[in-house]
């Protein structure tokens, strides 16, 4: 009985204190942190100089006019799984002068609902490159409408009647996304062994794509910082 308790405690610690999600037999997982930071040249200047937007501690002091990368709230981590055909529901809410989301990552085939909480009838559309467009039926105040997303790429959801109401969408086939604040932790668990792509996206910066191989019984830790220079460098990766 004593040995059983000790073994149970050891197992408990192994499962709960090991980094990353619990290991499921025959499955794997990827997990990590996503964050954003200023351009490397700005950080380098901050490390040398105080004054202005640079503190004496060598850090950037963010003012109201600046993009505070440490406080960004719409960073997306996405996994592309070819077995996922879409069909998930997402809801955007349109107020009188703003949308509930500035950005959203979705899969082609997902259903995108828009709730009209403004005081006028709104006709939403989802536009891609060139002439690709999907148009919602007009939505009365207090009602909602839906389309199934048929496009991929960086898309724009807008409305005919109010140009302020706009959300940028990131759409890929087989995409499953998680939204996090800068510094947040993500995980995709119970993955079948195989090859996957992980995409880290922020609407104003773009995305970084990483290839991973999931093996049975193994968790992969993959942390990513988003910044202009890191995204630019990733574009030049072979």
């Amino acid at each position, binding site marked *: 009985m004593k040995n059983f308790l000790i073994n149970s405690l050891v197992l408990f610690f192994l499962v709960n204190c090991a980094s990353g999600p619990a290991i499921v037999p025959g499955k794997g997982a990827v997990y990590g942190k996503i964050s954003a930071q*200023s351009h490397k040249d700005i950080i380098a200047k901050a490390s040398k100089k105080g004054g*202005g937007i640079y503190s004496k501690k060598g850090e950037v002091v963010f003012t109201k*006019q600046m993009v505070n990368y440490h406080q960004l709230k719409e960073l997306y981590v996405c996994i592309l799984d070819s077995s996922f055909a879409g069909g998930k529901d997402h809801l955007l809410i349109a107020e009188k002068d703003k949308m509930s989301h500035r950005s959203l990552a979705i899969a082609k085939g997902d259903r995108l609902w828009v709730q009209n909480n403004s005081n006028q009838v709104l006709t939403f559309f989802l536009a891609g490159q060139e002439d690709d467009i999907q148009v919602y039926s007009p939505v009365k105040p207090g009602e909602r409408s839906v389309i199934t997303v048929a496009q991929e790429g960086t898309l724009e959801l807008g409305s005919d009647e109010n140009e302020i109401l706009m959300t940028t969408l990131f759409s890929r086939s087989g995409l499953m996304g998680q939204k996090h604040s800068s510094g947040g932790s993500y995980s995709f668990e119970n993955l079948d062994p195989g090859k996957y792509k992980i995409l880290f996206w922020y609407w104003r910066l773009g995305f970084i794509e990483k290839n991973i191989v999931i093996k049975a019984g193994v968790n992969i830790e993959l942390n990513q910082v988003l910044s202009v220079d890191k*995204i630019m460098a990733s*574009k030049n990766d072979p």
Partner: protein
Amino acid sequence: MKSIFTVMNLPAFKSILLLYLFAFPVLANAHHLSGKVLVDGGKNLKNLIVYLEPADSSKLKLEPKLHKIMQKGRQFNPNIIVVSPGDKIQFLNDEDREIDHNIYSLSRLKNFDLGLGERGSILEVTLDKKGYGNFYCSVHKLMEGRMISLDTRHYAILEKPGNFILPNVPPGNWVVKVFVFHKRYKSIPINITLENSSHENVELKVVKK
């Protein structure tokens, strides 16, 4: 032929035309193209770019040009710029105090990161193809601009739908188009042949996709 002034009967339009005549040297045999942009449903779309492209683009020869964008007050000025492939854009940090910028674009038109732009700096990028894209300052959240690269030097940026004039257009076969930022709309191109006279009262239609 009626004068353009009597057809359009707009005092402001006369001023614009006179301004153009003084601003641009009049080319031999060149004419102007004028008219109006009409938007489906009367929608008051912002920032429409009327432009001419040669019907046969193989005859096109454009000398590279330099464009300048200022940044005073943490804003791009101009924040919409029309260029052609081969043109260079210079970003001048003319802030009146120590404010740093970092200008970048991750658009389909061009990926660039100009690094640290300190007060007094001049950073530049050359665009090499047609298309459009946004550029931003990574430091300041409201600093955003748009660049449109077209095979032409004949264009006019309209703040809203209405009258336009394109001066000094050489004779030839042209396609008149409108670039629309609002993604719900597109323009219907018109083919124009300019020979011995100007072309007036062109009606360009912008319709819903």
